[in-house]
């Protein structure tokens, strides 16, 4: 294994690019775009390197020895007085089978989004600088293992996103941007609060034998690291872990977005420029579910077990509600946005099953949703660039006018519905198999399957209204895909088809980690019930 700090490289490369871009004169738009493209392609290559050297047999989750590409340095170390103790924050990065797919996804999606941003011509320099800053924030969230660091990256994304929607968005961009900003900040203050509570409840032993409070997430997963009197300590009979779990869950659920915290999403999506919608749906939404898997589940396993039914319930509501809303939309982009809500519900359902099938399905679905929805938003972007409208009923018969484009559309739509042979099918069926196997949530699972039906309904109906039937006169001048658009669609399509035919490529990657997670959650039942006897 190499000792090259590849995770720091992949995380901070965009910041370096951003600083570089700030020194390029404003007029050199092409140069700015090329630098961004170069940076994001370097990121893809780095991600492939990680994939190549990744050891499939190590589990990760709560065991610091089986994380890979770890980097751990003392970042903040404040010698304390007797009353506050030493404050120690580590710069701690590492990945396991849960984060690898998402690191890969982030690299791919930002690369595609850069291509899609090529049409930006307003304040190019500012756009790409913010874009790269956002990139660092996203990548950082998936590789950070220290809660403090995780939180810094988590918040780092807010501001660039606010500006990217607010400056380069559509008509109601100001409203959408501030709504996004307020909602997500509202969520993250809860995360902050729980983070501080956990900090005062856990401690780890340093090499010199002193015990210090810690932000280390892996230390928080071990009940033996907790203090007797910490407010979030399972050893404390009057602990507030239940409330903290709800807070934390809401914090992450806003990002997913889970019903009833979803209302920011359609606004943000409709107003955001295409590339930002792609990032938003492709990567940002995954942070919510990733956070739940990485933080909520292993740090609060006993409460997770109590609440799985509710998690599955909200998953079900997301699936059905999102699908019904999607069906009612007249705006193409809004339809995709609501379908996103529906598809993220599957992830919640899969996680709630707490078995290997369900959790692999959930992680796999995160990746697949990332690629498929990214493609769907690109599709909307292509038609909007040409026709300057997104109203579904305004179109018709585009299949004859833009045959190649329609081919890609059909592929993406069928993948979203979950047609066998395409990647969405595998993850959705894993989720259903897993969730059905867990007796407690079986009924919810059965109801959730309706979502597939509804999904097929609105997708096919849209396909019919936009692409089939007679071509309307005014669209006879629309041209088919350009070279740049091929470059965006082809990689995504290949991934979708490849993972549909050969899903093991992705499933093997996450397998050991998912198994560790399942085992950890099962063991926790015994460990935590013995603790409550204190």
């Amino acid at each position, binding site marked *: 294994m190499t000792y090259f700090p590849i995770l720091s490289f992949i995380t901070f490369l965009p910041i370096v690019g951003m600083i570089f871009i700030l020194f390029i004169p404003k007029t050199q738009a092409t140069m700015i775009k090329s630098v961004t493209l170069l940076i994001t392609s370097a990121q893809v290559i780095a991600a492939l390197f990680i994939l190549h050297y990744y050891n499939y047999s190590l589990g990760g989750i709560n065991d610091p020895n089986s994380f890979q590409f770890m980097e751990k340095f003392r970042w903040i170390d*404040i010698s304390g007085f*007797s009353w*506050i103790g030493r404050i120690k924050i580590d710069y701690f990065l590492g990945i396991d089978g849960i984060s690898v797919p998402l690191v890969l996804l982030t690299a791919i999606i930002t690369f595609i989004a850069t291509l899609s941003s090529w049409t930006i011509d307003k304040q190019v320099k500012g756009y790409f600088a913010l874009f790269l800053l956002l990139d660092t924030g996203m990548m950082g969230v998936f590789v950070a293992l220290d809660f403090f660091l995780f939180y810094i990256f988590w918040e780092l994304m807010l*501001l660039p996103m606010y500006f990217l929607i607010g400056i380069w968005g559509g008509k109601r961009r100001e409203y959408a941007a*501030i709504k996004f*900003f307020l909602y997500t900040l*509202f969520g993250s*203050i809860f995360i902050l609060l729980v983070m*501080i*509570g956990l900090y005062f409840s856990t401690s780890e032993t340093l090499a010199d034998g002193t015990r210090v409070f810690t932000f280390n997430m892996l230390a928080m997963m071990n009940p033996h690291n907790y203090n007797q009197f910490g407010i979030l300590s399972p050893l404390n009979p009057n602990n507030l872990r239940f409330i903290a779990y709800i807070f934390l869950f809401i914090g992450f659920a806003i990002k997913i977005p889970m019903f009833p915290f979803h209302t920011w999403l359609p606004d943000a999506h409709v107003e955001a420029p295409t590339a930002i919608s792609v990032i938003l749906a492709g990567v940002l939404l995954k942070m919510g579910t990733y956070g739940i898997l990485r933080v909520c589940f292993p740090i609060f396993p006993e409460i997770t077990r109590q609440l799985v039914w509710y998690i599955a319930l909200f998953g079900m509501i997301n699936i059905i509600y999102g699908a019904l809303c999607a069906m009612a939309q007249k705006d193409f982009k809004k339809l995709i946005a609501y379908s996103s809500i529906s598809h993220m519900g599957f992830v919640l359902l899969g996680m709630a099953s707490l078995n290997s099938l369900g959790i692999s399905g959930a992680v796999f679905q995160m990746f697949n949703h990332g690629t498929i929805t990214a493609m769907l938003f690109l599709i909307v972007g292509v038609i909007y660039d040409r026709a300057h409208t997104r109203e579904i009923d305004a179109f018709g018969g585009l299949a004859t006018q833009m045959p190649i484009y329609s081919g890609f559309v059909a592929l993406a739509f069928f993948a979203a519905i979950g047609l066998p042979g395409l990647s969405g099918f595998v993850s959705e069926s894993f989720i259903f198999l897993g969730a059905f196997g867990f007796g407690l949530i079986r009924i919810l699972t059965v109801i959730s399957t309706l979502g597939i039906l509804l999904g097929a309904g609105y997708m096919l109906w849209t396909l019919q209204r936009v692409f089939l039937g007679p071509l309307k006169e005014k669209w006879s001048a629309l041209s088919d895909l350009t070279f740049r658009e091929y470059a965006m669609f082809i990689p995504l399509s290949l991934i979708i088809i490849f993972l549909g035919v050969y899903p093991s490529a992705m499933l093997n990657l996450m397998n050991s980690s998912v198994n560790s997670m399942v085992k950890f959650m099962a063991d926790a039942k015994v460990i935590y019930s013995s603790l409550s006897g204190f």
Partner: protein
Amino acid sequence: MNTISLEYLVDSLKLIKPEIAVTITLVLLVLVDLIMNKNKKFLPYIFIGGLTVTLYFIIAQYCTSSFAFNISKNLGMVIVDPFGNFFKILIAGSSIIIILFSMLSNEIKDGADRQGEYYVLIAGMILGMFFMVSSADLILIYVSIEMLSLSSYVLAGFDKQAIRNSEASLKYVIYGGISSGIMLFGISILYGLTGSTNLYEINSLVQASQVHGFTYILSGFLIFVAIGFKISAAPFHFWTPDVYEGAPIPITAYLSIASKAAGFALLIRFVKITFIQSVDPNGFWHLLNIIDWKTFIIIISILTMTLGNFAAIWQNNMKRLLAYSSIAHAGYLLLGLAVLSNEGIAAILIYFVIYGFMNLGAFLVVMLISNKLGSEEIDDYDGLGSKAPFLSVSLAIFLVSLTGLPPTAGFIGKLYIFLALVDAKMIVVAVIALLNTVVSLYYYARVLKHMFLSDSTKETPAFTTSISSIVFVALMLAPILIFGIYFTPLVDFAKSSIALMGF
């Protein structure tokens, strides 16, 4: 009480070298102003020189812990301790920034022939604040507050031509006069009950007799009124928006940092020394059971931040917005005191350093913009992002830091306040404070919206900023970004400064 010998006096004078240095600077400023007559350009440099010497003296005696001007063997009127020295550095440092600030301000330049008075009055404020943060005697507290107040009343109305300046000054005088009258009333009650004006003596008397009673509560609250007025805590904040809007921008910025810092130092000292019983090994204070300071301060602080934040939402003038935001920040700072622990005090000190940089920075940019646009209305900021990119981005960073988002230093300040709160198990209070942060985001983001998101409706040309201004802004910006990522030195500094004389 024995007669004070000359030796005693000399020993005491050695301990107040910083104050002496400020006094000499003040006299020097008056003399130079008279001698040089029309030529005022040396004044600020003399002032900065004097303050640098002052800073040297403060740092030289940083770790000293002693009384000066003793009334008996081990009690004195003036305290020299790291806590007081910390605030003296903060005050002297912000004063230097304000002087540089004033050199760039159009408002001050317009009153060129009265610049002598301007700097002398600032020196007077500094002297008042220095004694405020280090006094252990009710009389000295009162005198130093008056010294600070009288100078600042005049400075708030410095520009005689502007009506709003005079209005600000008059309002300030009226409110200030009443509040100091109330304080005097409180002091006289306390003196009547205990027969002493020295805080330490009062403390030991009260401890010994274990008194209770309404009169103690009344006197404590009455004294709090005047301090609450200085730190603009609700419900004594009504002067703040009017004075902040009316006064020249450098003075507004100065009031929002230095005079607030002095007020907080005084409040902490007064509460801790007068009412303390013991400090436990975890750093929590056990106060005498006379006044329930904890509940009282929690109520005041929640009221202050909520009022400040919600009122700020409706403001259209940038100075007024920052005035309300400074009220809200006073609320967060009060939470650090409400914890009643050493950790809370450390959090306040950390917050003050960061708050100093970000608030002064924000006012600085507002002033530079106002120099060019001639307006502080937020609506006039439309499209500023493309016209003055450097200033707009800087202002954005300062505002984001005021909101408390990482990776800016403002986050670290808030983090320490919340660490102290959670450690003291005051979870509900922490939740209220955090929700307040979300509210504050709305009005800070509104400024961002006008600068970057809205297109300009008026035809104003792009404007350039002088190199010196850019360097100055960049110097204010650097700590915000550096402390946001690496805050070890700052926290170490604050932690070594929480030692109050005697406890």
